[in-house]
């Protein structure tokens, strides 16, 4: 099957391995990720101010494109997912934002949040099915792995509806599907602090060390994430406590599709 895909700024550059492995794995699992045309950067952070419209337009454009191309929009980067999903919710439920955004965009038909935003992990779980992934694994990852969710995938849970915000299980289920042993540790849903790196370099250090130490204490041998920013922060600021990888890298390894 084909599915419209929004890569986002970082995946074309610094996080190329995330993008590459994701596409390869999807293909191996029978899903064709069709990159949408002329996508623009989503802005990497959801603007909460109630009068913010212009900053949401690139997300709406992508959503509208997907609406006419299969009705689903696949995301991979946690930040893109957060921005696009929350913007979509605005278009669905906030009449004011919806009508103003549509006034700007002048689409043939107003966009009202019809597209379903799907994270790659949700795609693996709901479209492919973890059971099917299990069957496709040729190279089981026989390691103890800590899932790092961070904040963007889970919160605000009312909108993101990704998983239980305090006790998520989707990445753990994923780890099991590729043959690994998930390690549950308390800081897997705590923010790594990367967003403020440019204003305060100390805070991200403290936070990422705490995350990795917590994972290590519970027995993890490595940590996986879906977010390029988290990956960068945990790798650079995490004091090298544990190796950090994208979850798709492990998936590629398990499926034996490593480029």
């Amino acid at each position: 099957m084909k599915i419209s895909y929004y890569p986002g700024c970082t995946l074309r550059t610094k996080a190329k391995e995330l993008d590459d492995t994701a596409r390869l794995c999807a293909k191996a699992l029978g899903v064709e990720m069709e990159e949408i045309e002329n996508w623009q950067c989503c802005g990497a952070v959801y603007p909460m101010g109630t009068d913010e419209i212009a900053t949401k337009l690139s997300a709406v454009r992508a959503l509208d494109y997907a609406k006419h191309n299969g009705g689903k929009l696949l995301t991979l980067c946690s930040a893109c997912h957060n921005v696009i999903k929350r913007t979509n919710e605005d278009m669905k439920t906030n009449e004011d934002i919806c009508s103003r955004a549509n006034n700007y965009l002048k689409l043939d038909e107003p966009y009202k949040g019809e597209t379903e935003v799907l994270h790659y992990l949700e795609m693996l779980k709901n479209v492919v099915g973890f059971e099917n992934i299990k069957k496709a694994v040729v190279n089981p990852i026989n390691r103890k792995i800590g899932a790092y969710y961070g904040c963007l995938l889970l919160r605000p849970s009312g909108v993101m509806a990704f998983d239980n915000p305090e006790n998520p299980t989707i990445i753990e289920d994923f780890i099991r599907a590729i043959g690994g042993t998930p390690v549950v540790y308390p800081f897997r849903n705590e923010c790594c602090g990367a967003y403020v790196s440019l204003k305060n370099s100390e805070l991200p250090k403290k936070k990422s060390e705490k995350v990795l130490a917590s994972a290590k204490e519970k027995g993890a041998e490595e940590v996986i994430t879906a977010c390029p920013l988290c990956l960068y922060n945990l790798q650079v600021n995490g004091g090298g406590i544990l190796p950090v990888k994208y979850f798709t890298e492990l998936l590629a390894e398990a499926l034996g599709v490593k480029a």
Partner: protein
Amino acid sequence: MTKEERIENLNRLSGTDVRKCMKCGKCSGRCPAFKEMDIKPHQFVSMLCNGKIDELLECEAIWNCLSCMACVERCPRGVAPAAVVEAVRDTVVRMQGKNGIKAEEIPPIVDELIPQQLLVSAYRKYNK
């Protein structure tokens, strides 16, 4: 703008009803950046409620809030402290010369691994 109008503006921009706060402090109990915040999450709500906006507009905390939504997630009353923080930050950066990041400050702190999204998001959050 009168003070009342500025308060009203902040309330509107945040989109959250600060009067719903019951002063339990769960937001601050959970905030991962608590120690770096000179004004704490619960204080943002309380101070907006009490109209102490001059202090809010001058605080450092708006640059340290991680926007991680932990406070929003756990508020038992459906208040969004992070939205108040963002409303204050928006108000500040929209003022003349109050951008949080100056272009010339960037190059020295950027290493080659820094993902684009960090720069993009920082510009979006801190500058106008």
